[in-house]
């Protein structure tokens, strides 16, 4: 029997980026907020200690900061004809764990999706005709870029993002991303210094008539104090960024931007090492009464609250809805139901590797988001009239790290061991660079999330089942990108150029990207979305589901910037609309 606790105004599941933003905003509005976090408390000085953070084995290979499958695993299959089996170790993607969530060990790219990404169905149908996109299950998000602009701005200024504007109030600026939608002001800090590989790429891209720019990075180019008064330091290009906590206070994380202020508030409480088991509903099923959670000793509690915020990693948000019986689970055979619908990923796999002679790329001098990028072939920035796909990719030349357990390039045909391997790896390490394409991922009927019928977690609850393969449209897009990458790569005159292609059969083993989106999507229609335009559940009006789970489609960009913007958007809706008149913010 769960122990009943005193009521709170707001209970938040998960204290990562979205949980921290919502807690900060709603405690400012005077609410009494508790965040329930499955993992441990983590702070920079203790857990991301500069004395031992640069440890590739511990943090990158053995994945110490990540969610362990023993705590929560997921099952996977490529299509409904296969039997899903558990990913016994996480490989393709690595969810976060503990205070700060994946915001601790991310790279730090802070992108704004294009305006067209939020209205993809309408936009593409208008431009190319509805038949062009009939193989996809596209939906509009119910919110526009213009409505979100100030929310993107808030997240960029919270995180101190280093970058250069390419479209300031409609005025295009050379050297920034000229394909971005209009922004009200420039980034809070200037771009990072470009390393050698990125500089070569930019020069070549410009020569080809393309528009390279430095990626917007929450690895700060200079010291910065954010609007909450929290100070951050300058990035040292240490090369231990993604998969690691930042010891320099220079990568934006909840720890370096919000928690120093939030944790001191009397009306905020964090309960760590406590896992939410389910959301309880009132007998009418239309509002939630609170959550049941279990602490690290195994004792169960019931935390009643007026407002429930699901702020876990997107995949966990979806699972919590399914475990709590909220909303109608998506059925891929009939296309009915919404929870688990429109799961998307990121179409990786298109890339070129260039090996030169006599160069010194110093690959170990890097940061998570240190890259030169072109958006000439991203989203719908280019004309698809004569192409056999929709969507696109951000093409980038990044230098994130040269950590040698993971990064040991050798020329084609080199053995994997022995004297020849040794000679090759010694020669090639300094002479290699790469260019990659991060492709959009669009929804199709057969890609979805539901509960696994066989495998259970440590509490006996079903694991989430991921049914996914790369849609044909996205593979045609990725192949087009391999061609573009080859053109750019050849223009750089390497000794050896290796092209990689994306293919059918999503593999859960090699790392690709932790950009899992959808499953609790937002929209204007309750038959094709789980939450309304304010991220409020259509079924349970005091429940908001916040994260990349709300995306109807994933763009050719890292999702965190858009996740941050949606967090501010939802916080404003709760503060300015819901508190004044609790209940459904959008009629059905």
């Amino acid at each position: 029997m769960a122990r009943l606790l005193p009521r709170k105004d707001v209970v938040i599941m998960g204290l990562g980026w979205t949980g921290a933003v919502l807690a900060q905003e709603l405690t400012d509005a005077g609410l009494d907020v508790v965040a329930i976090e499955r993992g441990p408390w983590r702070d920079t000085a203790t857990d991301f200690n500069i004395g031992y953070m640069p440890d590739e084995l511990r943090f990158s290979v053995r994945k110490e900061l990540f969610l362990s499958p023993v705590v929560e695993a997921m099952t996977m299959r490529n299509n409904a004809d296969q039997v899903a089996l558990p990913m016994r170790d996480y490989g393709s993607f690595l969810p976060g764990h503990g205070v700060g969530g994946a915001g601790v060990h991310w790279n730090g790219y802070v992108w704004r999706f294009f305006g067209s990404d939020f209205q993809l169905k309408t936009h593409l149908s208008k431009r190319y005709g509805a038949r062009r996109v009939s193989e996809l299950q596209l939906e509009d998000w119910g919110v526009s870029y213009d409505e979100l602009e100030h929310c993107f701005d808030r997240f960029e200024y919270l995180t101190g993002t280093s970058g250069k504007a390419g479209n300031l109030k409609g005025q295009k600026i050379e050297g920034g991303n000229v394909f971005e939608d209009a922004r009200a002001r420039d980034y809070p800090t200037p771009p990072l210094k470009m390393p050698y590989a990125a500089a070569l790429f930019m020069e070549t891209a410009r020569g080809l008539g393309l528009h390279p720019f430095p990626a917007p990075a929450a690895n700060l180019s200079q010291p910065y104090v954010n609007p909450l008064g929290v100070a951050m330091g300058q990035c040292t290009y240490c090369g231990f960024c993604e998969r690691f906590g930042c010891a320099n206070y220079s990568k934006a994380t909840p720890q370096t931007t919000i928690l120093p202020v939030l944790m001191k508030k009397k009306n905020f409480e964090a309960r760590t090492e406590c896992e939410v088991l389910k959301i309880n509903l009132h007998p009418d099923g239309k509002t939630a009464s609170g959550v049941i959670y279990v602490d690290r000793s195994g004792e169960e509690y019931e935390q009643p609250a007026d407002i429930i915020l699901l702020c876990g990693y997107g995949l966990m948000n979806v699972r919590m809805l399914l475990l709590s019986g909220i909303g109608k689970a998506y059925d891929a055979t009939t296309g009915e139901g919404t929870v688990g619908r429109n799961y998307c990923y990121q179409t990786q796999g298109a890339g070129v590797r260039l090996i030169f002679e006599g160069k010194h790329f110093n690959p170990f001098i890097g940061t998570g988001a240190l890259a030169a990028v072109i958006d000439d072939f991203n989203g719908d920035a280019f004309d698809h009239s004569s192409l056999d796909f929709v969507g696109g990719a951000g093409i980038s030349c990044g230098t994130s790290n040269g950590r040698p357990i993971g990064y040991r390039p050798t020329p084609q045909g080199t053995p994997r061991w022995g004297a020849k391997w040794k000679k090759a790896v010694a020669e090639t390490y300094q002479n290699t660079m790469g260019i990659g394409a991060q492709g959009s991922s669009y929804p199709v009927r057969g890609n979805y999330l539901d509960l696994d019928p066989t495998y259970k977690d440590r509490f006996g609850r079903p694991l989430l089942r991921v049914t996914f393969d790369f849609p044909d449209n996205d593979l045609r897009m990725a192949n087009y990108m391999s061609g573009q990458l080859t053109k750019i790569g050849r223009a750089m005159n390497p000794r050896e150029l290796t092209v990689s292609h994306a293919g059918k059969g999503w593999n859960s083993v090699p790392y690709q990207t932790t950009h899992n989106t959808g499953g609790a999507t937002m929209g204007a229609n309750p038959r094709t979305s789980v939450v309304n335009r304010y991220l409020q559940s259509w079924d349970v009006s005091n429940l908001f589901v916040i994260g990349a789970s709300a995306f109807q489609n994933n763009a050719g960009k890292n999702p965190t910037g858009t996740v941050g913007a949606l967090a501010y958007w939802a916080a404003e809706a709760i503060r300015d609309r819901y508190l004044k008149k609790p209940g459904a913010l959008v009629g059905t």
Partner: protein
Amino acid sequence: MLRGQKPSRRRFLASASALPILAITGHAQAANISGHLPWEAFAGEPPRPVNPMGWYFLTPAEAATVEAIVDRLIPADHLSVGGKDAGCAIFIDRQLAGSFGKSSRLYMKGPFAKGLPTQGYQAELTPAARYRDGLRALEAHVRGAHGKGFAQLSGEQQDEILAGLESGKIELKLAPGLSTRGFFDLVLENTMEGFFADPLYGGNKGLAGWKLVGFPGARYDYRDHVDKHNVPYPRGPVSIYGET
């Protein structure tokens, strides 16, 4: 206590720490935090360098085989010492004795089914058990074919056997669900981990792996060099415990 739940993160052993020999230090971490940042001095978990003496998981005979293998995967030449002198076998032994060897952070609930390649490793055996089984089967194969143990063969013969394991020419008689190529890949992966990980884990002795490729290790600040394009980095590697 529930399976997989930690009593406290402050008691939790670093998952990559090779040996479960740390004393349990027990200041309880409050789970309810409000009104302050819950920072405490000296609460971190610095890694402990492995004890270089003896074997913790491998038997002496197994250790001799592993030393011979790592010395062929990474042979000594003018570029660097070999895998054995770089400590790769010690690294593997300590890893197998610790969290990695026991799969303690992985999902190990059944049913165990034969999966598709896209579903990853699906057998029930942990890395420690796979080494025990694989080394037994390798010794049995070598004794059958050559009349002596792997470690007693010439370098050339050893290379031929390793190439056979890699290519599928040799099929070891392994426990159900295991493949010869899978065993070879595991050993190769762990050998490379040992050669290129921080030396505190027992491998990369004298920073041999880092010197081979020119990786500066735990330096952590390159602000003075990021825009020196195409210029070799002037400083050599340094380890977490300050070895240069």
